[in-house]
């Protein structure tokens, strides 16, 4: 069974990796919020945030290619929106360019272009922040950090179990399909094939359900009473607190400056 390591890069070592998970999660959250709030007319604040992220990426000594690959996962959603917006959002109706195609006229609106730029840059910054966080923090540390930040426990438990059992489910599904294939599933008449597909999905559901019951019993057997207890985490060091402080100052400083009149494009 092959497993993709969701947080494989998080097991390296660098100043960013060593930083406490809670601080990184808080920093990433603030950066994402700030990027979303930036006025789209300006360009330099976006550049400043991207430069900040690039600096952190260098500091984390992460290989570029796997990080870009993860970021590329966002591309289908972001690019679809970015390509369609210039044509579909007229705003005040100002047309930047138009193209005659036979009897059709394709208009590119100014407001649409601006929206497209905002979507592109904001999701790039948000995506890069999230990727950087996941690539420098082991998953279990991230979960613990979110719990300390009062993230809803039920949601966290669901994420933790999903992370634990996703590969198992995938393996179970592949085994079911393999078993069907080895009995010539593909060669059967369509009706039989469809019925088998339904059976596979159905038994996967039942197995998941039964496993859930067994896992719960195993938890009860070790004294689970409905509350998740976590290991104590190391205290935040003074240096780490300073690092977060400087980071937040930069992020919020850029955000404030971006709203100043005459701060440049």
């Amino acid at each position: 069974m092959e497993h993709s390591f969701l947080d494989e890069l998080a097991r390296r070592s660098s100043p960013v990796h060593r930083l406490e998970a809670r601080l990184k999660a808080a920093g990433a959250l603030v950066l994402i919020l700030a990027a979303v709030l930036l006025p789209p007319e300006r360009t330099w604040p976006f550049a400043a945030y991207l430069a900040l992220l690039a600096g952190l990426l260098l500091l984390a000594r992460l290989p570029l290619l796997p990080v870009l690959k993860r970021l590329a996962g966002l591309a289908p959603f972001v690019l679809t929106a970015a390509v369609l917006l210039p044509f579909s959002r007229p705003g005040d109706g100002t047309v930047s360019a138009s193209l005659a195609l036979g009897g059709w006229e394709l208009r590119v609106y100014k407001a649409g272009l601006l929206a497209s730029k905002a979507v592109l840059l904001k999701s790039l910054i948000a995506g890069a922040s999230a990727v950087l966080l996941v690539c420098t923090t082991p998953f279990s540390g991230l979960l613990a950090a979110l719990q300390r930040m009062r993230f809803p426990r039920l949601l966290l438990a669901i994420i933790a179990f999903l992370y634990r059992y996703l590969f198992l489910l995938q393996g179970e599904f592949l085994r079911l399909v393999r078993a069907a294939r080895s009995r010539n599933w593909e060669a059967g008449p369509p009706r039989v094939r469809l019925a088998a597909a339904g059976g596979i999905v159905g038994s996967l559901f039942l197995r998941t359900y039964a496993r859930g019951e067994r896992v719960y019993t195993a938890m009860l057997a070790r004294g689970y009473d409905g509350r998740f207890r976590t290991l104590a985490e190391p205290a935040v060091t003074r240096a780490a607190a300073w690092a977060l402080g400087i980071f937040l100052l930069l992020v919020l400083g850029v955000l404030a400056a971006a709203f100043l009149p005459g701060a440049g494009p």
Partner: protein
Amino acid sequence: MSAPAAVEIRGLSYAYHDGTQALREVSLTVQPGESVGLIGPNGAGKSTLLLHLNGCLGQAEGVRILGLPVSRPHLREVRRKVGLVFQDPEDQLFSPTVFEDVAFGPLNLGFTGEELVRRVRRALAAVEIPPELEGRLAHHLSYGEKRRIAIATVLAMDAEVLALDEPTGNLDPAGRRGLIGLLCSLPITKLIATHDLEMALEVCRRVVLLDRGRVMADGPVRQILADEALMRRHRLEVPLSLRLGR
């Protein structure tokens, strides 16, 4: 009065919701330090019996663990005393890392800080899992490692009775050999449900034969496993080692 039995079961009956009668009037006493094999065909009620030892199937009328009845007010204490190791380690190991999984039980018992770390390390050492594996994810381990860690998860709670469901299933010969060595070296009371009769011969002095929810035989391991008529009647067979040794 003498010390209470590790496990005392008196007339335990149980039916699942669908009406399947899994246990009928089961009576069984296990003394502290004993290793007892629980054998019987598929569906005999072996796993159901183990689940009753710590009240996983609700209150177990007539079951006492080290003198404590398995009922709601004592459930917490009973679950500390009985370490249930499930058949499929994937069910037992549900935390993101090995360390957290072994820490789950002790955390629920209220242990924190250094004492918690000490317990986890001691339990992992007892099952010979090297400290490098502590931070690993359960789904990246071998089956044998998962089985050992599953046992560590209950050792970390200072269990006094180990209830193991098919502990040698799916292990390679070396893994099985290692597990037998481990079981023999653990000085606590053990109740082992298994089809691996050769293993029962090595680890247990006494076996209990269960079929259709009833205790059919209870006695010294060699005497019961060598009884060809009894074994055949209950869909079992005399282990090869005993047949050859005759």
